């Protein structure tokens, strides 16, 4: 295989790895945002669902 072809494939792999890292960061970010939103909704509501009650207890709000 020619040197330039090899370099191109290596570059592709590097770009793909960078993209995979970006996907991971976005996923972690989305989990954090969803959790924060869920907690806020539970804390500021009087919902009777178990999870909402637990979250309110956890944050000392009953």
């Amino acid at each position, binding site marked *: *295989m020619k040197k330039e*072809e*090899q370099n*191109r*494939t*290596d570059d*592709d*792999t590097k770009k*793909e*790895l960078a993209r*995979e*890292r*970006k*996907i*991971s960061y*976005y*996923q*972690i970010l*989305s*989990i954090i945002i*969803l959790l924060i939103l*869920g907690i806020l*909704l*539970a804390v500021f*509501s*009087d*919902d*009777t*669902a*178990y*999870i*909402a009650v637990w979250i309110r207890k956890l944050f000392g709000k009953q």
Partner: protein
Amino acid sequence: MITAVKIILTIFVLLGALPLFASLYQFILVIFHSKLNHYKLAKPITPAVAVVIPCWNEAGVIGNTIEHLLSMDYPHESLKLYIVDDASTDNTFEIVGEKCKLYPDNIRYIKREKGGEGKAHTLNAGIKVILEEDWAEAILIIDADILFEETTLRKMTRHLADPKVGAVMAYIKEGSTSNTLVHKFVAFEYICAQAASRRAQNVLGVTACLAGGAQLLTKENLIAIGGRIDTSSLAEDTFTTFRTQLTGRKTIFDPYAIVWAEEPNCLVALWKQRLRWARGNLHVTKAFKHIWLNKEVGNLGSFGFSFIWFTIMLMPILMILSSIGLTGLFFLDFPYSWLIFKQFWILNTFTDLFIILTCNFLDPKTAKRTRLEGLLFPGIISLCLIILSVYPNLLDRLLDIAVLNSSGNYSYFGLDMKSFIVVLFLYLWVSLCMIVSYLAYYTEKKGCPFFISRSLLLIGGYGPFLCAITFASYIKEITNSDMKWDKTHKTGNLKTNG
């Protein structure tokens, strides 16, 4: 006694939530793909690749497929196409003949006199010739209508630099030009089932299925698994995948090696295709029964993989159990059942939102094209329940008030007639959605106006439609129905950029 029944029914509801946990588990595993992947061991190599293309009346697509394959960024001297004609009755032969004249060194035409035995037999005819010629170092199994992108094969072969790799799979994307509702549902499904799920399987170090549409096998691996493809089932590709892993070789999914496929655009054709796949998976489960939860067979026997496999396989049963659990609890202890029901939908909401967001990160272009279908994947009624449970007070106001504070005759387990029907419907919906989705298929099959089947599909949901197919596969297996290899009709309306 009542407490024991309540515990059992609660377990039923929890079992119904297992598919949600399995989805969450897989999508969370995707996070680790940036670290646990095979790229570190991949090197740019271009081994001699023999492409096996099984054909039966593929005149509409085969010319385009050949052109795409031979215009790939891959050395021509390392690429040979073996077109195996399964006794076509159209002009496939003439079209391939013309291409043979254009590329005499790269195309080999193999004609089977007796056709109709199925894809695996056709593939074996080509594989036999390839192994006899002893030229190829790797064998690429594809469908006749699949279109490869320029760099796809190179991206697949780079993983073969690791001698432990036995097979590599590309990311199959839906690329029909017609862009119908069904096509868009399939396109979204493929982000979940391939881009996400296969990444998760890369992380687990195990693969459920290297799709037969773009499956690259090393010659050593093919010989190690018997030098032929399994012909006893409808899931020859999954058999190959499992056997490869049982020889101790790795199987890799490369999400950047993209191929485009034309998927069915009507529910009847989709039902046929998926029923074949679902029955094939049942065969695999039975044929490899010794591997489940068996640590001696490596990652294939891991708890994580068995958990994912069986929750998908048993999803219809789990959904029915969930409905039974909720309904039973409703009659025993309504307030408790209502609380459990809300938990179920809160979990559903979180899972759904996370899946949709992840799909947008994994494949932004397809996710953009299928934004509405992604939202409507669980069906309109389920989507309404998801929206209602996003904000707890909203759910309380619209459901609790209607149910708990309704006036009238409270003779139905503490509820009036209207509330009783509403609650029972919502509890049963987890299973009813499969029936509504089945009706979408049934009405299309019976020739009812198009809008009826599509409306039913939107109400019931595409996810439940797939569950209904799995349920139908149980019935087919129990009743020992004939295994038919129904070819999915392809029009050739396909493009490589979606």
